[in-house]
Every structure is written in C-alpha cells, then in structure tokens.
C-alpha cells in the first residue's frame, strides 16, 4: 500500500470531518461576511460621515463637527420636515389604499371559479413590471396635454387635471401609481393567507345566521390577522423607501417645488446631486432609525397581542 495515498486519504478524511463538524458556520459565514462587509462597514461609515462636514468630493478633507448636522437637520423646516411628512403621507396613503383594495380583491378571488387563472395572471403583471418603465408609462397617461387620463375625463365633461405636474396633485397621483403597481402583491399575500384558513369557523358562523359582513369582521379578519400584519410590514418597508417611480416621474429634488420629495429622494439628492455627504448621511441615519422604529412598533404590538 502506498503511503502517499494513505496520507492523502487521511488528510481528506480529517478535512471532511472538520468541515462536517463545523458546517453550521462554514455554510452561514460566507453570506454573513458578505452582508457584514457590504452593510456594516458602509453603515458605520455613514454614521461617521453624519458627524463631519464632508462635502463636494468624497476625497476632500472633512472636519469632525459632532452633532452639528443633526441640529441643523432638526431645525430644517424647509426641506427635512416636509420630506418626513411626505414620506408618511405617501406610505400611509398607499399602504392603506392597497390593504383595503387588496382585501376586497382577495375576498372576491377566494373561492375558486372559472377564469380564476386569468385574473391571477393579469394582476401579476403590474407587480413584475420595471418601476422606471411604469413611471414613464403613467407619465404619458397623466400628461396634461396629450395624456389619456384627461381625454378620459373630457368624455364625462370633467375639466383637465394637472396630475403629475400640479403642486398639490403630484403626490396623490404617485400614490395612485404605487397602488396600481403594488395592490396585486397584497392580493397575493392575503389570498395565500385566506387559502390556508380552515372553512369550519366560517361555516359555523354561517349556520348561526351571521351576515357576510359579520362573518368577515368577526371570523375571517381575526383569523387572518398575522397575514395582514405581514402584508403591512412588507409593503410598508418598501413604500417608505420608494424611489424609482418618484425619481422617474419628477426627477431631481422631487419636482421644482419638491412636491414629491420624500426622505429617500431627499437623501439621494443631497448625496449625488449636491454632494453634501455630511447632511445626507444625517438624513439617512434618521431615516433608518425611523424605519426601525416603525417596524419595531408594528412587530412589538403583534408580540404583545400574542
């Protein structure tokens, strides 16, 4: 027997035993290191930048200024606070409308029927469409002069609306676009939840003479609670961070009056249009804390209820 082969085999065996013994971290570590390097380091850097007056070029000298940026941002009633308000309005409006419509459509789709497949395919389409293309598409439809939206209104004698170009109508119009694109996701999530429900409680309530509304309100909705919360959390996170359709339709700064400038658009503009890295990082840290706070509140309430 060749000794060489023997040691090779033993070495391989030793390695294999080691690998199998440590497979937990061997499997998990690469992904975690990747995420750590790509997130933890940049995030720490962002925290550091938020405490400096970094500006102009990323290579330029910057001074440590402590919490001056935070004070400045907190006192900024011209851009920062309106952006916070718009972020809440956009997210609140969009998610609320999506939940109500999504629940309605999901209930209509709940029990099987002929042609169900086609409805499911149809509602999947907005969901996978590229948001930038979606923004451009609605930009044409909502164009005040040549868009189909105003043409449609004119059939009913309604005067043309400014839609995306109006200072007060732009944000609601974009909420509409978001609702168009993401309601299907709520439908799919709620439908998955509804399908997993057992039919007995509903049947029992029906036999007891409960009306459809009562059965929905007091039987289905409570059983569906955790699915509803998952849907709100998933959609809420994405809605807070909406960027593509806002930037694609209104461009830099959320329009000339900043009418659709949410925190994400504001921070992006500060970073890459004005290269004001210090302030941008401050806004981002605050934005990040805001998202975490909201998520914590939602999931904490959920745990408290359980």
């Amino acid at each position, binding site marked *: 027997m060749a000794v060489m082969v023997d040691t090779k085999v033993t070495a391989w065996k030793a390695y294999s035993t080691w690998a199998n013994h440590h497979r937990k971290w061997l499997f998990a570590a690469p992904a975690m290191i990747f995420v750590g390097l790509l997130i933890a380091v*940049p995030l720490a850097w962002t925290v550091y930048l938020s405490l400096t007056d970094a500006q102009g070029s990323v290579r330029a000298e910057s001074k440590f200024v402590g919490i001056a940026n935070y004070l400045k941002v907190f006192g900024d009633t011209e851009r920062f606070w309106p952006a916070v308000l718009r972020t809440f309005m956009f997210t609140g409006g969009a998610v609320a409308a999506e939940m109500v419509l999504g629940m309605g459509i999901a209930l209509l789709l709940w029990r099987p029927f002929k042609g169900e497949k086609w409805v499911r395919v149809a509602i999947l389409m907005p969901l996978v469409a590229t948001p930038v293309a979606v923004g451009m598409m609605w930009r044409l439809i909502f164009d005040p002069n040549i868009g189909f939206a105003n043409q449609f209104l004119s059939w009913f004698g309604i005067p043309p609306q400014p839609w995306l170009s109006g200072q007060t109508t732009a944000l609601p119009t974009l909420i509409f676009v978001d609702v168009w694109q993401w309601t299907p996701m709520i439908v799919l999530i709620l439908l998955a939840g509804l399908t997993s429900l057992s039919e007995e409680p509903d049947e029992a309530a029906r036999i007891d003479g409960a009306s459809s509304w009562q059965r929905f309100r007091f039987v289905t909705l409570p059983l569906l609670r955790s699915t509803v919360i*998952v849907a709100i959390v998933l959609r809420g996170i994405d809605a807070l961070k909406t960027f593509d359709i806002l930037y694609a339709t209104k461009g830099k700064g959320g329009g000339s009056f900043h009418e659709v400038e949410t925190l994400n658009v504001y921070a992006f503009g500060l970073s890459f249009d004005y290269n004001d890295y210090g302030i941008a990082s401050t806004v981002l840290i605050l934005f990040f804390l805001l998202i975490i706070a909201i998520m914590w509140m939602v999931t904490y309430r959920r745990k408290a209820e359980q």
Partner: protein
Amino acid sequence: MTDTVTTHGVPEGALPEPTPQQRPRRPHKLRAYPIFRVLVLTLTVLLFIAPLVWMVVASLKTNVDIYDPDKTFFFTPTLENYANVLGRNNYFVFIFNSFWVALWSTVFSLILGVPAAYAMSRFTMHRSAMVVLMARIIPGVSLLVPWYFIFANLRLVGGFGVLILSHMFVALPLIVYLMMSFFDSLPTELEDAAQVDGLTPIGAFLRITLPLSVPGLATAGILSFIFSWNNFMFALVLSGANTKTLPVAIFNFVSYASIDWGSLMSAAVIVTVPIMVIALFTQKYVVSGLTAGATKG
C-alpha cells in the same frame, strides 16, 4: 358596507342545499353575488392591464399620432420607434448589460445564500438570520455613498463587478429569506436516512436536500433575477457608460427638453415585456416567492 361587497363568494351550487333555518337572511343578494363578482373582477383586470396595453399601443404610434387625440384608438401601427431604439440608440448593449448583471448577481447570491439559509434553518440561527435580513430594511441610499467611495478608490466604478455586488445586496437577503422558509418546510427524514446510510451531513445536503429543493431554488432564482433586472437606483450611481442597465437607459431618455414619447414607450416595452413573459411562464414560482412567509404566525 352592504352585504354584496363583502360576501365570501360561494357560488350557489357549491354549497349543500340549505335547510330553511340555514338560509342566509337575504338570499336574493347572494344570488346577485356571482354577477357582481364577475363584474368587479373584470373591471379589476381591466384597470391593471389597460395601462400596460396603453404603453404597448403608444410604442406603436408615431410621435405625431401620439399628439393627435383623434388617433387615440385608430392609427396605423409602426415599428419605427423600435427600430430607432434598437438601432440608433443601441439598446442591445443595455439589454445585454441588464441580463448579465441580473444573471451573475443571482448565481453568486444563490451560491452564498442557499447554504447559509440551510444552516440558519437547520440550526435555528435566528439572530444570524436577522443580520442578513437587515439588508431588506436599510435604505439603499445610505450604502451608496460609502460604496461609491470604496469602489472609486479601487477603480471599480463603472465595471460589471460593482453592479453585480450591489445587486447581490438586494438578491442575497431575498434568497436567504425565501430558502429559509423553504428549508423550514422541508422534512428532515430523508437527510437523516441518508446519513444513516453513510453520507456525511454535507454530502446529504448536496445529494439529497439540494435536488429536493429545486422548486425553492427556482422561486428564489427567478425572483432575484426579476428584482435585479428592475433595479434602478444602484445602477444609476454605479454604472458607467458601457455598463448602463436598461432602467438607467430609459431614465436618460427624458433628460432632454422634449420627450420622444414613441421611443420612450418602446424602450419601456423592451424592458418590461421580457420580465412579464418570464413571470407568465413561471407564475407558480413567482407567486409562491412573493407570498412566502405570509401564512406563518
């Protein structure tokens, strides 16, 4: 709320014949429900599909026709816009770039993410999973400035490498999240049996679990490809002239004073239609991915 709006929608025939006491209080409304349901669902489908159809219709019009309200529905279709976009604006390069970045960011994310998801599922590493899932919550902009700085110093900005890395930041947490819930639902009996028969734990993972996970892998892979294909913000900052992806190319269309609507719409069709076709054929996987975790407590 009226009864009809919230009825659960059991077609009459699907129920056992109700005895008089069981009969709902307003039976005539229940009978009206199927019609109501069909009407509302038809309207829903129309609302979700019509804008997309409109986009395709506009892409087949000349710019003169787009501006003419008389030609809203009746016009002579032309492929001029597509010729313009694909020929003069050389969109083939952008299509390739989008495809290339989506492909490799998906492949690398699967290689990193699937074993991690497996370990996190089998060893219930909840805290580690949280770390990876944090990536879903963090606003991407907050990472872009440091990335830009690091990658600019490494002279990587404008290359495919950075784009793939940045898209992996979206894909990896998604894959870990999806595969974790997939492995959670996969029984361990077969793995255990394989180990009894002499396979090592890693061997059992590679030769038993992975082949069983093809549906989960398909879901995770397709969704991560779609998300990467649709991603706009990272490419907007990190791509160079040669690595521009489709969404960025479309966005650049409108930086001029007047918009060439016909070409813009055909560019929008070019980016959207491939992904819709993929979604159409892999509908089952896409839906199961989008709704993963929805029914857990």
